[in-house]
Every structure is written in structure tokens, then in C-alpha cells.
């Protein structure tokens, strides 16, 4: 088996084990009030961080991709107008695609 296959097997097994580890944490740990509070709040911090990283970074550099940023801006406008969830996603994709098509 090639080195690349070994790396792939390691990543597949490791990623699955990481998912299972959180889901299978012992009841004793999950029931701890501090852990419950942390678990309830941590997705908010991680998802907000993902929004920032996926919008404004490329590799290890900070970037300002105008079409993508405008797409996110369109999502904000849709949210302010109380548009349904899927309309928000469509607004982001359509605005980004149109600006890219326009060559920005």
C-alpha cells in the first residue's frame, strides 16, 4: 500500500473516531453543568468562526473576495427582510455568481 493510501486510511479512521468520541462521551461528563453549558454555547462560537474563516481567508492569508463578501451581504439583507432560509442561501449564491460573471 502506498504512503498516500496510509495517509487516507489514517484520516478516515481518525475523523470518524473524533466524531464518535464526542457523541459517546460518558453520561457523567455530559451531565456536568459546566460541560453542558460549554456544549450548548460552543457551536455558536465555532459556526461564527467558520463564517469568518470561509468568507475572509484563503490558506493562511486574510483575503477580501468581493463577490463572496457581497453574497454574504445579500444574505444579511435577506435575513433583515425575514426571508425564508432557502431564499437566504439562494440570495448569497446568486449575488456571488452574478458578480463573478461580471468579472469582479
Amino acid at each position, binding site marked *: 500500500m502506498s504512503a*498516500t*493510501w*496510509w*495517509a*487516507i486510511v*489514517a*484520516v*478516515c*479512521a*481518525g*475523523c*470518524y473516531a*473524533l*466524531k*464518535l*468520541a*464526542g*457523541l*459517546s*462521551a460518558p453520561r457523567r461528563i*455530559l451531565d456536568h453543568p*459546566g460541560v453542558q*453549558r*460549554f*456544549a*450548548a*454555547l*460552543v*457551536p*455558536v*462560537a*465555532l*459556526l*461564527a*468562526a*467558520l*463564517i*469568518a*474563516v*470561509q468568507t475572509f*481567508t484563503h490558506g*493562511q*492569508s*486574510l483575503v477580501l473576495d468581493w*463577490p*463572496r463578501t457581497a*453574497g*454574504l451581504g445579500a*444574505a444579511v439583507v435577506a*435575513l433583515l427582510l425575514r426571508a425564508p*432560509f*432557502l431564499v*437566504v*442561501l439562494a440570495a*448569497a*449564491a446568486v*449575488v*456571488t*455568481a452574478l458578480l*463573478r460573471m461580471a468579472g469582479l
Partner: protein
Amino acid sequence: METTTRSSATRDGLGVGIAVGLSGVAFGAAAVTAGLSVAQACVLSLFAFTGASQFALAGVVAGGGNLVAGAAGALLLGVRNSLYGLRLAGLLGVRGWRRLPVAQGVIDETTAVAMAQPEEESARTGFFVTFVTLYLTWNATTLLGALGTSSVADPAVFGLDAVGPATFLAILWPRLTGDDPEARTLRPIAIGGAAVALAATPFTPAGVPVLLASVVVLAVILRRPK
């Protein structure tokens, strides 16, 4: 009422699953361009099934980088799924062997859709619909992207790279914009998390910035024990 929230959870799950799943084309294409075989690209999507880690490994293969460091970086990106698991464990209520198939679905998008639902029943529906839809779409489009690297268009052309951040924003929005105590607690966590991640990006390897955002949560809990 219950039927309404469940069908809205189903609609959210289908939408996110298909829209985000289409980006599998980008992964399949990137993997083969990087020098992975079609089979290797598909194995990663079937068994790792967590986009950021998959892209990270393909990137290292493309750059001819150290595979051990590359695998470690991919795993670091997967650590946040453990944190999501802590949250989902109570919500999904799966025990014993049932955890084995369900665990594969513990990722950003499924957690996000589950969190957006008003009650536990629809949160479970949201999780499973997103998981199944995204799993099928992501794997099918990985194969398509890997087979037809040049003939399949770049998903960025369709603005699909904006769908991920827009999804997470749409899900956090109602919880952040209210005037209730919860929103007042969550706003600094969200803004702080985003700021920490951006500030850390130039100085830390991929995966670390997002994980560092969880430090903000620790700071808030320690400051206001409850």
C-alpha cells in the same frame, strides 16, 4: 404545529444538504488535480466525510508536502466535530451500537440545522435529513468531480462557496439578533469567536483558528458561572 416544524426542518435539511453537497464536485476535482486517484477521492468522501479535512489532505498531496503533517492537519480540522458531538449526544439520544452510523453525520451542517430548530423532535428530523441528503449528494458529486475534472464547471462560478457561510449565518441570526438575555450572551461569543479565528489565521495551521474560538466560550463561562 408539530407537523409544521418537522416539515420545515425537513425543508431546511434538504436545502442545506443539496446546496452544500454540490461542493463535492470541487473536492473531487481538487483531489484528482492534486494527484489522488478517483478511488482515493471517493474513499475520503465516504469514510472521512468532513469537507475541511478532506480538502486539507488533498492540498498537502498537491503541494508534495509531508503526508504525516498533512494527516495531522486534517485531523485537527476534525476535532470540532467532537465538540459538536457533546452537544448532539443529549439531543439525538442515541445509545449503544446506533451511535456507530449516527456518528458519521456529526459535522458543521447537521449541527447547524439541528440547532436552528425550535424543539427536540424537529431538531432530530433536521439532523437526519441533512445527514442523509448531504451524504448522498456529497459522495455522488465527489465521483462526478473526480471523473470529469475538466468537464465539470468550478462550483465557485455558481457562487456555491458563499452557501456555507450563508448557511451558518442564517442559522445563528435569530439567536443573535433578539433582545433577550440569551442573545445578549451569544452575541459576544459569536463576534469574539469570529475575531479570534481571523486573528489567529496568519499564525496557526489550518484548523486551529476555528478551534481557538472555543476559548471565548470558556472565558464567558468562567466569568459568569451558572
